[in-house]
């Protein structure tokens, strides 16, 4: 029973990692850039929602605040692309990596300045309610996190493989120039992808803040989401979710069964092992490299 309980809480955590990883993968799939600020955008989303709903801030009703904050973050993602990433169009990947790291610093600073550095929790209607199921006691938030994540991943996967816009996004990433020739408005598509990633990050932030407290430095957790994205193979949406679940499930088990001090190493060690032995993840999209 204890194992099952650990498993469920691990899965719920893993879903949040998976959602952040999903943000990485979305942007990577469509623009071939890696957004190191994804974790910080998630925290921004969480704090925007907290600022809108929590009684000590604006005190809007929870369900009304959700779409507002998701829309705000989508707008933020679009603006980031428009103002920062688009001028970098045509420059090396490393430059974009450094830019997004710097962006993460700035976001962390701004969030700390606006909402303070104390950990805060999102006041939500699900908080504190439990679901008793055959001897298992599940937090309702945990269940909500798992359900929302599954729905979101499923719909994004369908979006990328079934819709014209999704296909255009994939094409834009695989070969920018060729995509231009095919009449895909590459820049606009990339702006939309960043907006989408901002919205996903916001949802991840809301789920995370509903489960536990966030503070501005929570964004560093994004690194664990990297582990998730890498384990899943950077270009695969279901892979990202699965990677997130793996990292999320391993963590509580490691801290339960492995000596303290070694347990927090496990996700990173796993990340490095995957990078060394299967550099393109468990769901590899890499084919042989031709010159």
């Amino acid at each position, binding site marked *: 029973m204890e194992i099952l309980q650990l498993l469920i809480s691990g899965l719920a955590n893993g879903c949040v990692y998976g959602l952040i990883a999903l943000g990485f993968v979305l942007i990577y799939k469509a623009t*071939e850039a*890696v957004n190191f600020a994804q974790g910080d955008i998630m925290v921004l989303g969480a704090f925007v929602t907290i600022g809108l709903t929590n009684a000590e801030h604006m005190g809007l009703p929870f369900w009304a605040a959700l779409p507002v904050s998701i829309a705000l973050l989508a707008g933020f993602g679009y603006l980031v692309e428009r103002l*920062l990433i688009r*001028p*970098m*169009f*045509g*420059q*090396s*990947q*490393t*430059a974009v*990596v*450094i*830019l997004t*790291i*710097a*962006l*993460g*610093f*700035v976001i*962390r*600073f*701004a969030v*700390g*300045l606006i909402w303070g*550095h104390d950990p805060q929790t999102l006041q939500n209607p699900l908080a504190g309610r439990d679901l008793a199921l055959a001897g298992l006691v599940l937090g309702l938030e945990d269940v909500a996190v798992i359900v929302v994540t599954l729905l979101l991943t499923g719909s994004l996967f369908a979006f990328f493989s079934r819709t014209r816009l999704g296909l255009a996004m994939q094409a834009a*990433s*695989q*070969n*920018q*120039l060729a995509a231009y020739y095919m009449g895909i408005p590459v820049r606009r598509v990339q702006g939309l992808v960043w907006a989408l990633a901002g919205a996903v990050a916001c949802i991840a932030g809301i789920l995370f803040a509903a489960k536990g407290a966030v503070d*501005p430095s929570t964004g560093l957790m994004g*690194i664990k989401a*990297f*582990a998730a994205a*890498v384990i899943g193979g*950077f*270009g695969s949406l279901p892979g990202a979710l699965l990677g997130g679940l793996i990292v999320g499930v391993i963590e509580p088990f490691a801290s339960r069964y492995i000596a303290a*001090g*070694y347990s*927090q*190493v496990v996700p*990173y*060690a796993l*990340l*490095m092992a995957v*990078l*060394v032995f299967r*550099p*393109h993840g468990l769901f590899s*999209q*890499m*084919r042989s*490299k*031709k*010159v």
Partner: protein
Amino acid sequence: MRIVFKTDYVQDIRPWKDRYQLGLYLALLALAVAAPWLLDAFYLGELTNVLIWAVAGLGLMVLTGHTGQASLGHAAFLACGCYANIILLEAGLPFLLAFPLAGLVTGVVGALIAIPALRLHGIYLAIFTLALSILTDDIIVLSEPWTGGVSGKYAPPINLFGVMVDRWGTPAPFYWLTLAVVVLVTLGYINLLRAPLGRSFIAVRDSEVSAQAMGVDIARTKAVSFGLSCMVTGWAGALMGLFAGAFNNETFSVVISIQLLMMIVIGGLGSIHGAFLGAIVIGFLPQFLSIAKEWLAPLTGGGSVAIPGLEFGVFGMILIAFLLFEPMGLYGRWLKIRTWFELFPFYRKDMFKRQKTYLRTERLK
């Protein structure tokens, strides 16, 4: 504009362009040597700090600026050099032996890590090294018998040719020690760049495919570059440990890694000057901010309130501004200004324009 008429190959690969340039750098060196008599103890300490960061920057510049491999984990090698140096000193080795060995150990560790890591490309390498940097903290805690774990270690005073060298007690000799390391590393770096090895680094950076076609062994070149980079970073780490006096598992955090990378980007990737200019920005930014805050305090009405994270926020904004408006960094800006004056009035706006490359995926080549 000075035009140098080159008449033989030796002149072409000579590190300095002409006597005038050589004279300038010698004057700069003389000024640097005389600094302890010109500055008070506080600013001398700051200058030492800047020089140490410059060594670390040079270390990363080999890898990122000249071989094109971004590392987000160089704090791990700073830590490695720092601990190796102190452990060797405590084992009774003289400083003159312990210090170079610390760099060598770090270089070997770096090269060993590089062999699996360099199969990775671009961002994957960045993520790998980022994970390495995060693990460093835990590894230091876990290997407590050697590293002192959470309680950390203290740098013993060192004795060099009968002179006590200590950051607090005798800042001037410590400064000269740092300066000597800086000069040696810089000379080595300049030499490296005109040797076949350095040229193969640049070839790998510019195009792996063409480098391979020219007969450069890519894997070996990258591993050597990583090793050299780590060796220099290890020396910087050893100096940092001596400079800080006390350090523990949290001293060399992942933030330091990122700061180091940002530093060389601000300075200007792919130039030795860039490492120094970036180090100056990093070293003096905190002072500058506190002065600016005092100056602004009457205007905003607030006292000298501490704003947590301000330094990193400002740093991030500076970096974003550089990446957007001056991707070649401070050194690139300086080159443009200098060219403007040298060519006046014939400078054209597009002289430094870079060719844009369109992106193709690494996944489906």
